[in-house]
């Protein structure tokens, strides 16, 4: 039923987004309208319209190949970097289409940060320089401002205590979990409005995972977070809202508790009870 609803959206939809699935009342931070993503001729995302709430955690779950990562990468225009890939439809950040004419993708990415599946700190840079990298791109040269931003970001990422005495050491010397938190700190340093996380814990052990989840809950007060995860328990633990994707379509999008306890769609139920996936 929601699929049918979605197909009707988009055309002529006014600002009050009749069509986009929105399981909440507030003004959405991000909103996609009939978003389609292609790899060459293959359609990986088949027209998804959903609204993402401000300063909440929204999780996207689904089996491998359902397009959840691709969807996420459309939200900050990273998808189009892949060869022969392109996007159709709209993604509105506070009502402004980031795919609109004249919009600079680089400027979009400064507002919508991203954390990747595998920790990818810059190996030639120190911990400090890793965190400051984004700010330096923005032309911040003032030492004091950089120091403050680095400290603030590392504290937000729960990494300050472990690294404050060795900020000059290379970031690659940290453990996997620390490296991922360093990458989160790096993304936070440029003060984005939205943070996209693409399975940020899939390469980490349970201990490191729980620290990152804890951190996400703290960050929720200041940032809008969208997380793609393979791990349904993780979605249940951290997310306020959860969307279930299957084969490039959004099957269901609800408050997390409702989705897990009382899914409306049979497909969702079968997935969360582990009958396929």
């Amino acid at each position, binding site marked *: 039923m929601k699929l049918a609803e979605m197909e009707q959206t988009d055309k002529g939809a006014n600002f009050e987004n009749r069509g986009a699935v929105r399981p909440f009342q507030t003004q959405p931070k991000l909103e996609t309208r009939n978003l389609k993503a292609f790899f060459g001729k293959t359609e990986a995302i088949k027209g998804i319209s959903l609204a993402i709430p401000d300063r909440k955690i929204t999780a996207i779950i689904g089996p491998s190949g359902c397009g959840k990562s691709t969807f996420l990468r459309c939200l*900050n225009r*990273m998808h189009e*970097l892949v*060869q022969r890939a392109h996007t159709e439809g709209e993604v509105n950040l506070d009502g402004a289409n980031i795919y609109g004419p004249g919009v600079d993708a*680089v*400027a979009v*990415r*400064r507002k919508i*940060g*991203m954390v*990747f599946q*595998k920790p*990818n*700190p*810059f*190996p*030639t*840079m120190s911990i400090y320089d890793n965190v400051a*990298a*984004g700010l*330096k*791109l*923005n032309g911040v040269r003032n030492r004091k401002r950089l120091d403050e931003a680095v400290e603030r970001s590392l504290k937000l990422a729960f990494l300050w205590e472990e690294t404050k005495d060795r900020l000059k050491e*290379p970031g*690659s*010397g*940290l*453990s996997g979990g620390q*490296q991922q938190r360093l*990458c989160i700190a*790096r*993304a936070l340093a*440029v003060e984005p409005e939205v943070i996209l996380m693409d399975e940020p814990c899939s390469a980490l052990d349970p201990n490191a995972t729980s620290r990152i989840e804890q951190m996400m809950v703290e960050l929720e007060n200041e940032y809008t977070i969208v997380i793609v995860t393979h791990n349904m328990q993780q979605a249940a633990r951290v997310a306020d809202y959860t969307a279930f994707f299957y084969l490039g379509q959004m099957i269901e999008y609800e408050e997390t508790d409702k989705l897990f306890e009382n899914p409306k769609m049979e497909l969702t139920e079968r997935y969360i009870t582990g009958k396929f996936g």
Partner: protein
Amino acid sequence: MNQSGKHSLRVGRISHSPTLLCIVAITKFIEWERFSLAGKEPSAENNAVVPAPQFSARTSKLGDRIFRVLTLGAAFFVVALLVLLVYELIKGSDLTLAKFGVGFFSSKTWDPVTQIFGALPFIWGTLYTSVIALIIGVPISLGVAIFLSEIISRTSRIGELLSSIVGLLAAVPSVVFGLWGLFVLSPFVRDYFEVPLHVHLGAFPLFKGEPFGLDFLTAGIILAIMIIPTVSTISMEVLRAVPRSQREAMISLGGTRWETIRHSVLPYARSGLFGAIILGLGRAVGETMAVTMVIGNDPSLSTSLFHPGYTLASVIANEFTEATYPLYVSALVEIGLTLFILALIINIFARLLIWRITKSSRVRT
């Protein structure tokens, strides 16, 4: 009598060092071989905790052993070849080693008529032209590599065409480059670069002297063209090996394409790029024919770009047929030895540098 005795002692000391080096190399190799044996066999045992009888004896073991002996033989053959080469170089240059000793490397005079030989002008010419080649060739090569790996897509027609053309450049015989350098490049450089530079900036030591076209600058430009295929092809491979996650990290922070290359891709690839440049330098140092044809063949220590010079490789090529008496031949062989040592020093230096670069930035996995 006494004099010659002293010299032969000196010969002994000098001939010692490369031989020693080779012995060290061989022992290292044996150590490594033993280490690799020690490293492999216990782990194989560990894997097979309970060796089931049907897995223990295999007919292919003999084949393994033969294969090992064959490859080991091939490896040792190369080492033996090197040892022999160094030995012959030292033996062949015994006359000049005895007569001039270490002074050979620091003497400015090369005069076959008065039978005084010194290698310094050739060492200088080799280094000077190689440095010019790097200064001109490396930025162009890096530009080509960055363009091919970062700017246009890997599967595009233009990219494939361009990289195969760069490869073709490497296939042009050196003597053809030399001819082209002599008849086309040299007059062009003289008329359009050297003369104006000399007229306006002749006061600088770099641009002193009447430009003839057959000089350090022309040789350096020819060398630059010849190292471009090497440096750009290897650099391109190195850049392509940079993981996508490194690029995406910078892009997701709001980096433009250039910022991503500058702050993420190039730093990540720096040790590999350095290796590419060193290979280019190796080619420039050893290049013979093209340089011989355009450098002007004058053993000088001039710092002027417009002064004719000489390189180690080109003096050997040029004068071997004229070497009419044993001391002359010996001097040329020692020039060869010098070239070998120079290449060795560059390689050691490069390895140390690469080691220092990678030590500080090893990624933990």
